Structures are given as structure tokens and as C-alpha cells.
């Protein structure tokens, strides 16, 4: 642990001292100290709900600390609001994007700091400036596109441009990598590095320890609202960080037992599906999943994975092709019919799709089976059974707080996910489609979720696992297909493929072409 007592407050870009923040029922920050040196990338890590975002929101003026002091470059400040924070050179990229969906990229960037010509917005000039910024830092964005039409990766870059446009010297990046692909993460890291070289200070929040090790200089670890550690990257390793975060030993590698899969259970034949804009998103793909097998789907987001999962779970119309389930053609069955056949689904956007935030946990725990016995009988809900069942799930899945009557929307993001996972995993699935199961989860929770997925497999469930985390796909899947622009680039076994080969397929190279060129290479074709 290194907190250098010789350094003066002036040497820190950000110096937060004894910050305490109380919410009505939660003590989110408890006398937290955070010291960030000028020009460094300082990582802030900790379990879900540890209080990281809360701490940063206070630095950005969104919340007022209950007590404690903040110094910027040694000067004691009272941050009245975001406007004030911006004036003090602080920029923040929030965990949940703060973008206005129906405005363009340029409009989002200039919002609040608009320039005008005779009272009229000078959009031309703004476009130019945004373009210049994006070129300078390699943040590729389409300045005229509406936010709702661009992929999340680009949205992330827009968020960063927003802070740069306002001339921020201190950048807070709250989980900027959670929704990005490995390539995009590399790009972001390059940008962060460039910014660091430009003398900017960055506070970087992430749950991915290898990222933290890769990019940051110093690390502050939080747990249950308190700081539990403060280390330099050079003096630590992933395992130690994980232990500091969770307060116990964490297994970072999954332990997958070999298993013979059963018969073919799910079969997809030349499937075509359109996206919301009526463009073909899944363009004729075929695959099979056997009982007790995990089929991983890798690929950069926006290559048809979401549409594929939605088509298989009844949320999206199948344009053409066949979908067989246990030998039966179930193409275009509706959600309820598919659920009746024991197909369950953990969707990508859990907050939007998988729960009613205003419902108490006990209602969310039975969603999809709410009309079936024992939860309902002849159209009437059986609350006793519902309570009993959800108590059990909340206990089994360690949802915190363990209160079935609390509205799900008031849980922390990680715990909301647990509710969804608990429900879908416990709904006696025979086939489950899982998308991005560990997005935004802390290491402890990831460990738990991974084990659950493997349990499903071991219980003979057919599993479709969509993830952008290469490592996750590689460690959990029995077989992997890689999707690019709605097509399958190739099917591989995790132990027979290199990360490079995966990367090439995700970038649109067919497996057989890759194999051919490597063969050429090894046969000395390239001299």
C-alpha cells in the first residue's frame, strides 16, 4: 500500500478527503479518501454497489457530499453542480450513457456549451470542431448520425468527445469498457494513453482487472462504501486486487469439467432475421446445439447476435429459414409458446427488457411463468407460493438486500441482474439463450454466474451463450461460432483456436481463409 505522506495536496489533481454520502437507506460512501496525481490514470475498483459511482458523482457535482472535503489541484472547492465541475475542468463519462437519443452526435457534444451566430446555433462550426477533436484523438464518430442509430461503441466515444469538447483536464470514466469489444477497448486505451501524454488526469472505473493492470498507474479499491486499499500497479496483481475487492479468495479461472453432449436439441437452418430498421441482420445462418452443450457466439456487437437471440426466443419475427426445437419446427412461435417449451432467455439489455422496475422482487421472480401453477390458479395469483418461491431464489442467488418486497428497480445494477439470472435459470430451462451475462458485474458475481452457466450445462440444458468477452466465451463454451454481419465466419472448438484467429473472424475473415493463409505461411509461401 502506498499513500505517500510527503506529497502535498497541491500535487494531486483530485484530493477527496473523508467523503461521506448518505442516501435515505444506504451509507454509500463512508469517510472515503481518494488521491489522484496529476497526469496519471487512476483506477477505482470495487464490488457492485461499493460506492464508486457515488463518489465520482460527488466529484462531478451531481450529488452533494454529506460530509468531507474536495480539493482540486490543492484548492478546496465546493462543487455546486455539473456546470461548476465543467468550469473547474472536470469531465465525466457516466456508467449509464448520458446521451440524448434523438439528437445528433454533434448536438449531443455541444449541448450546454453551444456557440451561436446571431442567436442561431452555429452547427457548421460545431460539426467541424467535433470532427477535428475526433480526428485528433482517433475517436471515430459519425457527427451527423442520431445517437439512437449508432452502436454503443461509438456512443462511448461520443461521451469522451463530450468531455474533451469542454476542455476537461480531469476525466472521470465510469466503466467505459463494460460494453465494448476487445478491439474497441484497445482503441479506448490508446486514446487514454494519448490523453495521459497530453497531461490529462483520468479516473478510470472498471471491473475488469486485467484492464486495470494494463492501463492504470495507481489503484484505489473500495468495498461496502469504504476504501480498502490503495496500491500502485507495479506492486500488485489481479489476484490481490480481487481479494481486496471481495474480501475473500476469488477463483478467477472457471473450472469446466469435460462432458459428452447429448443429442441435437436446437437446430437452426438458414435463418434470416431483420432488425428494427428492417435491414437484414441475420443473413442465413445455420447451427446446432446439443443437450448439455454450451454454444458460444462471439462477435463484435451489432453483427446480428441480438437479433438472433430475439428470434430464437420469440421476440422477433423470423423472416425465413427454420428453427427446430427438440425435432419440432417452432419457427415464429410467440414468446409464451416458446417459454411453455422451457426456453428461457437472459437478454442483453436486462434493465429494459427483463424486469419491471416498479414491481417488487417477488413479482419479477415469476415473470413469464406468472400464469402457471403454482404461482397462479384459474387466473388468480397465489401469493403464498410466489413469496415462498422468491424467498428461495433470493437466498440461493444471494440477492442483496434479501428482501422480496423491495422493488427491483431500487436494487443496485448487479443485484438487478441477479434477479433476472435467478429467474431464468430456475425456470427449468431445457434451452437457454444468454446474452452478455456478466456485463457490469464485479468479479465475485462473475464467478458465481459462470458457475451457474456451467451447472446448466451439466444438467443437460442446451445453452446459447452470446458474449463479447472473448475470454468468457473461450472458457465456458464447448463450441464457438463467430458472427460477422449476420453470417457465421466459422465454427471452432475453444482449445483449437487462437485469440488472433478469433479476432480475424470477428473482423470478417472466414475461418477457412484464415486456415489457408496460415498454411501458406507455414509452407513458406511468404518469403
Amino acid at each position, binding site marked *: 500500500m502506498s499513500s505517500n505522506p510527503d506529497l502535498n495536496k497541491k500535487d494531486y489533481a483530485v484530493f477527496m478527503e473523508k467523503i461521506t454520502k*448518505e442516501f*435515505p*437507506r*444506504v*451509507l454509500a460512501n463512508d469517510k472515503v479518501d481518494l488521491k489522484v496525481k496529476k497526469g496519471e490514470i487512476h483506477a477505482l475498483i470495487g464490488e457492485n454497489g461499493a460506492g464508486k459511482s457515488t463518489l465520482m458523482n460527488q466529484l462531478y457535482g451531481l450529488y452533494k457530499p454529506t460530509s468531507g472535503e474536495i480539493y482540486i489541484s490543492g484548492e478546496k472547492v465546493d462543487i455546486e453542480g455539473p456546470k461548476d465541475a465543467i468550469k473547474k475542468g472536470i469531465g465525466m463519462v457516466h456508467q449509464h450513457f448520458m446521451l440524448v437519443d434523438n439528437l445528433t452526435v454533434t448536438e449531443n457534444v455541444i449541448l450546454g456549451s453551444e456557440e451561436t451566430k446571431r442567436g442561431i446555433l452555429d452547427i457548421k462550426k460545431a460539426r467541424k470542431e467535433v470532427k477535428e477533436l475526433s480526428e485528433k484523438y482517433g475517436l471515430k464518430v459519425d457527427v451527423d448520425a442520431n445517437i439512437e442509430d449508432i452502436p454503443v461503441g461509438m456512443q462511448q466515444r461520443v461521451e469522451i468527445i463530450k468531455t474533451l469538447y469542454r476542455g476537461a483536464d480531469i476525466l472521470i470514466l465510469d466503466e467505459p469498457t463494460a460494453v465494448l469489444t476487445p478491439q474497441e477497448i484497445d482503441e479506448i486505451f490508446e486514446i487514454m494513453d494519448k490523453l495521459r501524454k497530453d497531461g490529462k488526469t483520468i479516473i478510470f472505473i472498471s471491473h475488469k482487472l486485467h484492464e486495470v493492470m494494463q492501463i492504470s498507474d495507481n489503484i484505489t479499491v473500495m468495498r461496502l462504501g469504504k476504501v480498502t486499499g490503495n496500491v500502485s500497479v507495479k506492486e500488485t496483481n489481479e489476484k490481490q486486487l480481487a481479494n481486496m475487492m471481495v474480501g475473500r479468495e476469488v477463483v478467477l479461472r472457471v473450472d469446466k469439467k469435460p462432458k459428452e453432449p447429448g443429442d441435437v436439441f436446437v437446430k437452426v437452418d438458414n435463418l434470416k432475421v431483420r432488425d428494427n430498421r428492417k435491414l437484414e441482420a441475420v443473413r442465413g445462418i445455420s447451427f446446432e446445439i446439443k443437450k448439455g452443450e454450451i454454444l458460444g457466439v462471439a462477435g463484435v456487437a451489432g453483427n446480428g447476435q441480438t437479433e438472433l437471440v430475439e428470434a430464437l*426466443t*420469440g*421476440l422477433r419475427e423470423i423472416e425465413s429459414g427454420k428453427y427446430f426445437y427438440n425435432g419440432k419446427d417452432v419457427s415464429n412461435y*410467440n*414468446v*409464451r409458446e416458446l*417459454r411453455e417449451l422451457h426456453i428461457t*432467455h437472459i*437478454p442483453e439489455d436486462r434493465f*429494459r*427488457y*427483463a*424486469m*419491471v*422496475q*416498479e*414491481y417488487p422482487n417477488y*413479482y419479477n421472480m415469476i*415473470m*413469464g411463468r*406468472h*400464469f402457471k401453477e403454482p404461482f*397462479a390458479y384459474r*387466473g*388468480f*395469483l397465489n*401469493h403464498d407460493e410466489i413469496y415462498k418461491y422468491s424467498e428461495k431464489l433470493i437466498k440461493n442467488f444471494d440477492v442483496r438486500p434479501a428482501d422480496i418486497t423491495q422493488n427491483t428497480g431500487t436494487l443496485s445494477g448487479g443485484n438487478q441482474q441477479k434477479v433476472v439470472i435467478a429467474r431464468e435459470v430456475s425456470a427449468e430451462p431445457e434451452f437457454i439463450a444468454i446474452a452478455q451475462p456478466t456485463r457490469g458485474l464485479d468479479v465475485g458475481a462473475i464467478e458465481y454466474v459462470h458457475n451457474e452457466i456451467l451447472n446448466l450445462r451439466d444438467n443437460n440444458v442446451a445453452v446459447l451463450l452470446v458474449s463479447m468477452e472473448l475470454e468468457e466465451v473461450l472458457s465456458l463454451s464447448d463450441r464457438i461460432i463467430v458472427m460477422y454481419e449476420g453470417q457465421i465466419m466459422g465454427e471452432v472448438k475453444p482449445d483449437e483456436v487462437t485469440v488472433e484467429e478469433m479476432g480475424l473472424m470477428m473482423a470478417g475473415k472466414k475461418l477457412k481463409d484464415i486456415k489457408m493463409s496460415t498454411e501458406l505461411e507455414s509452407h513458406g509461401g511468404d518469403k
Partner: protein
Amino acid sequence: MATHTRRIKWMPFLVPLLAVLFSLLISAIIILLIGENPLTAYFEMFKGAVGSRLSWADNITKMTSLLLTGLAVGFGFRAGVFNIGAEGQMTVGGIMAVFVGINMGNVPSVIAIPLTMTAGIIGGAVWASIAGFLKAKTGAHEVISTIMLNWVAYHLSNYLVAGPLAVGQGVPKSPEIAESAQLPPLITVQASTVPSGIIVAIVAAVVVYIILQRTTMGYELKAVGYNPYAAEYGGISISKNIVLTMAISGGLAGLAGSVEVMGVYHRIFGAFTGDRGFDGITIALIGQNNPIGIIFSAFLISSLRAGSNSMQSVGIPDDIVTIIQGIIILFVAADRIIKTLITRTQKNKKPSLEGGEDK
């Protein structure tokens, strides 16, 4: 962890109660300003609302239709639909009840009453379903379509009572429905009656409560209202539930129409709904869209209106009561003001952050 806002269990009752109190206080100032005595005025109002058997009859008569349209609008809100069309649905309900009711001459009451009532429910339900169907199929906003349907119903009823259904010379009105189709009075006070419609209305409130709280249908409707995406994901059909919500909501408004016809007027005339459909919005929202809350809010408003007639006798313009209603509703809307006041007085009593005195 310090818990510093204690939950006050009777808050849901306290807030509207204080809203009424504050409004009466503010209105007292207005009454003083016009040179009258607020105490006499309020005493008269109280008498007029609940002070005699006659006032009870008057009060309950008003309450019945208010309760039903309040339920109609509130039910829609719970399922995420803003049914601003209870007015038109009530009109159509009344029309249907008349169409059936006038033909019940030789039918015994046990059959005639449910038949006539059902006709009203179906009328309202079908009328509302037009908006529900348009919303489900084409996404047409229910606020537009229900407003338009209100006007269509209004012109239609005017047409009917002056044309095909007209009886008599001076009055544009329909014939009376058969006696067997009329709701018997619970209590008769001179020419006033406490119509048994109130029982129908309260039963409806309880049924709505059960639907919302105890049935899978309620579970699904509310889920669609809160988060249609999640509902769809959970295998709940959005379009089916929107149409269903509109149908039930409209059915309740239609029931209001038929109960008003069967219990109060025994016929329809132009604009017989008397803006009850719009009042329903107020009632629903004061009752926080909760069927049981709506019973109380309907009674509150009907009492105010019944009481206002007596206030006139001591020289208070009837419009004062409208103003009082407006202020009450404003306070209900801004219940935070009252909650803040409550917590402030609580804090003054015991200026510590610690809770724990919850008993």
C-alpha cells in the same frame, strides 16, 4: 446506517386529508374577502353533504357515477393508458342501456336489470376498444382517438335524443326504460333516492381491486403499463392487453352510463353524462389510481358538490366550491408540499436524525 425519513404509515390518508384542510383554509380567506363567514359557510356545506337523509341521498347519487368513471380512468392509468374518453364511453353506455332498457317491458327485473346493465358495459367497452384497437394496431395515440370518440358520442347522442329516440315536444330525450329495468332505490327520501347503483359501483371497485391485485390479468396489465418491453419479453401480449385495458376501462365508464340511466334518469337526453367522464380523471388521480382510494375520492368530491348547494343559501357563490376543488387537487398533485410539511413538523418535535421511535 441512519434512517432519517421515517415512513409514516398513514401518510396515504394524511396527505389528501391535509390537502382538503389546506384548501378549506385558503378558500376561507376568499370567503372572508367577499364578506361572508367561512364557518357558517362550511357548516352549511357539511350539512348539505351529510347533514340529513336528503343530503345523503343527493351525495350518494352523485358519488355513484363519479366512482365508476374514476375507476374507469384509474384502471387505464394502471395499465399505462390515458383514457381521456370516459365521457364518450359513458355516453355510449347510457345509449345502449336505453336501447335495451326500453324493450324490457315484459321481462322480469332479475333478467332485465343485468341485461340492461351489461348492454351499457358492452357499449362502453366497444367504444373504448376502438381507441385500444387503433393504438395496438397502428400506434395511434389514445389521447387523440378518445378525445375524438368523445365528440362523436356527443353528437351521436344529441342526434338520437332529438331524432330516432325522441319523445315529447319540448325536451330532446329518449323514452323511459321499462320499470323492470330500473334500479330499485335503496332508500327513498321524498323525491330523492339513494340509488342501488352505489352498490354496483362499490362492487365494481372491489372487482377492479381484485383484478389488479390478485389476478394474472392484473399482473399482466400492470406489467404492460410499467414496461411494455419487459412484458413482451415475459410472454405477455402488448396489443392484446392494450385492447383489454381499454375495453375494461370503457366497460366501467359504460357501466357508469347504464347505472346513471337505470338508477337516476331512467332515460337519456343530450349531454346526460354531465362531464362525469372528465371528473373521472380527477377522481382517479386523487385516489392515486387505487380502486379503494377512488371510493374515498369519489365520496370527497360528491360531498363537496352536494354541500355546495347548501352553501348558496348563505350567499356563497357556487363557484367557490369549484375553486376549493381545484385547490384540493393542486395539493394532491403536489403532495410533496404536504409531505415536507409533515416531516418538518415531525423534525421540530424531535430534532434528531435518528429514527427508531416507530412503534
